[in-house]
């Protein structure tokens, strides 16, 4: 049995229903991603006990916690909006949920945790004087101090700027690796999820759309929604390329090659060739160019190492790279 097992969990609102089953192994770092309103935070709130499910069961380490009080679940949570206690300094915030009773030992643990999150010497500081990044590190230390069985992080970096986000997400992953704590991390940022997680759960309209490693989801998306949510790409009607095929064919921009001259299809039997594509946009990306093309009125997104000199180009893609998705 998995460490965290969620079966047929249901929560109904007037215009939204969450309906999901999932399992998380001990020590796993699971990222939950999905667009706004897909039910990510609701799922976390129900696991933590902040909201009650209408149906289903939640089992943690073999114990059914579906109807347990929040305090008894042993679940730590890091909130998006820096939910530190403003009336307490950093140390007292961290000590709040500590199970250790001995005062000297508590101080020791606090100092260790502050070191772990990179805030050594911050103990006496007022939490109101902390920057956003520092506040999130204190939240992390505070949650860990309560020795949770599992740690939930609800978009903890969304209120921070880009360099700070990278910094903290590295710290979160380092803490996970050093303590081996099971973590569920909610984010809407796919780059964040790719860089930090062991596995990813993609949610859509209150349901699990896909589950797998970052590489899996990127390379073999099970649906058009997953494909577009996990990266950029082009979807064309399948019948445009293959007779009697329904749905869409999808490819990633880096899977396409650009040629400025006309290509003879008989020489490239392993490829599909789109001739006479008009260049609509050309965006410099640092490592190359992202080209926006138009093929018979259909938009195509392709990557190129060089900037095309002509207005019209040909695009070739290996047939094996074309995925038939619905």
């Amino acid at each position, binding site marked *: 049995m998995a460490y965290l097992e969620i079966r047929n969990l249901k929560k109904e609102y007037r215009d939204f229903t969450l309906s999901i089953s999932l399992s998380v192994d001990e020590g796993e770092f699971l990222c939950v991603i999905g667009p706004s309103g897909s039910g990510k935070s609701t799922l976390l709130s129900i696991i*933590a006990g*902040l909201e009650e499910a209408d149906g289903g069961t939640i089992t943690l380490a073999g114990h059914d916690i579906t109807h347990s009080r*929040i*305090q008894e679940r042993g*679940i730590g949570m890091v909130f998006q909006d820096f939910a530190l206690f403003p009336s307490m300094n950093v140390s007292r915030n961290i000590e*709040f949920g500590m*199970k250790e009773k001995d005062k000297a030992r508590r101080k020791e643990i606090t100092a260790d945790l502050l070191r772990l999150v990179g805030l050594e010497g911050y103990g006496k500081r007022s939490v109101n004087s902390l920057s956003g990044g520092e506040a999130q590190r204190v*939240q992390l230390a505070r949650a860990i101090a309560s020795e*949770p069985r599992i740690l939930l992080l609800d978009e903890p970096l969304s209120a921070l700027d880009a360099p700070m986000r990278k910094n903290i997400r590295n710290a979160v992953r380092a803490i996970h690796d050093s303590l081996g704590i099971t973590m569920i991390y909610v984010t809407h940022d796919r780059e964040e999820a790719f860089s930090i997680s062991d596995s990813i759960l993609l949610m859509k309209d209150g349901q699990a759309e896909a589950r797998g490693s970052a590489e899996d989801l990127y390379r073999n998306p099970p649906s058009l929604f997953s494909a577009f949510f996990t990266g950029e790409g082009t979807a064309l009607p399948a019948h445009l390329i293959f007779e009697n095929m329904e749905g869409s064919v999808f490819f990633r921009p880096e899977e396409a090659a650009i040629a400025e001259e006309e290509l003879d299809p008989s020489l490239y039997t392993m490829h599909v060739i789109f001739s006479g594509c008009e260049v609509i946009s050309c965006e410099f990306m640092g490592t190359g160019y992202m080209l926006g093309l138009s093929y018979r009125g259909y938009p195509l997104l392709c990557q190129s190492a060089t900037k095309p000199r002509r207005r019209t180009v040909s695009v070739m893609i290996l047939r094996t790279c074309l995925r038939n998705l619905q």
Partner: protein
Amino acid sequence: MPGNRGYCIRHALPGIAVLTILFLIPLAATFSYAFRDEAKALIGIIRDGYTYRLLSFTLTQSLLSALIAVAAALPFAAFFARYSFPGRKAVMTLSALSFTIPTILVVLGFVIWYGNNGILNTLLMKFLHRDYTMLRVLYSFKAIILAHVYLNFPVAFLLITEAWMGLPDTAENAAYTLGASRMKAFLSVTLPRLRGGIASAFILIFLFCFSSFSIILVLGGNPAYSTFETEIYRKVHISVDREGAAALSVFALCVTAILMAAAGLGVRQKRAERHRRTLRKAEGGKIAEAIIMMLLMLLFLLPPILSILYRAFFTKDGAFTLRAWDDIAGKGFGMASTALEGIMCSFAIAAAVSILSIIIGLRIAEASAKCSPRLLPAISSLPMAAGSVTLGLGFSFISALIPVKSDLISCILVAAAHLVIVLPFSVRTMTPGARAIPERITQAAYTLGASAGKARRKAELPLLAPYIRKAAAFSFALSLGEVNATLTLSDGRISTIPVLIYRMISSYNYQGAAALGTILLAMALIIFAIGEYGGKDNGIS
């Protein structure tokens, strides 16, 4: 969060029950008197043309007072909301202080400063070499209006300034870039957004003046200037017509309820803007303008209050004396209770009321914030509709039903009346604090294993501390200065400072009243300081 309904019932119910009992029992007593003998008294009041003259006068003086106070405050608010200059904060603090100044001190200050033989007339006669009273303000309609404006000008000024500062100036700047003049920008952009703030201030002042009591009783000077509140008092204590007083109370209650409902419909709460106005630094001519504005405000607000301090130590002829202070320790004032007893009694009642209002009000405020944003505040505001004289009358009926008479019972009844009057203000002061506590803070405490009690004690209450302190100070100040219900309920057994001051004004012992007034003023200042600066802010406001 799970269990919200249980939380609300556990938290709000005891407080609401106490409030309802303390409010409904005296009200029921009043109704029973009003409906006695097949509601003869009530029918009489409804048919009596005098009742409608009272209504007309009450409405006229309230409307006029509110209009003048708001109109006078507008130019000052316009300036204070736009410019920063030295002394601005001090003047704003002085205006906020007026919320804790008891009405009876305004009455006393007016008598001493504007009286026919008051300090202002003495100064005018001396400097203009006249041998007759030059300014006859007191005991007239204009005295009532002037005192109401005096008391409410700072209220209007603060409320409108605050509303104005909450409006970012981007829309006005956009109007200027489109070629609008200052006047056009004000009329078409600023004023429509400020309308809610102005209306709130107007309604608040109107309702306050509608239930005004001691100002009308003393500064009006004769029964021609009677409002519902003063007439109820006269019926109880002068005509000894309890049924008539009860019937008039019921009639006044209905009128107030209609007015409050209309006021509630008229004012819609607007969402706060995300950005506040940035104050511009006053320079050159604007500094001169600021000095003139501050001087005008100080010249209007300070003399009546300062004259109380002066008169506590100087005779009418200007000779220094401590006689009134000696009298405070003994029975020199010729009252049933000594002034010292009055001070002790006032202090004890105010302390008890303040503590109880926090214990009861805090639970109601927390429950209002967490589960019932409309119903609980509405229930806890009910006593405001009744008016303090009506409540005092109800408690005097209960007092008459109690066979045993003692100082303690009188004290408890006065404290109970004060508690009902004070509780809505206490709840209103704490509710925004309870609402400002992010739900996440409590949830975070729960996820860290804290029980509901620990989460409240350690995470929520420290954040509420500034609001609790302010509510305690406000409740203490309101109880300390309460005169309407106390005077109506008073059976002569116990006296509070405001009642003693009222009696001394009535017997023309202004020096004694000023000495007691000085003590009351000092207490009000200390309470204000404790409420505003007495502890650290935990940063949720």
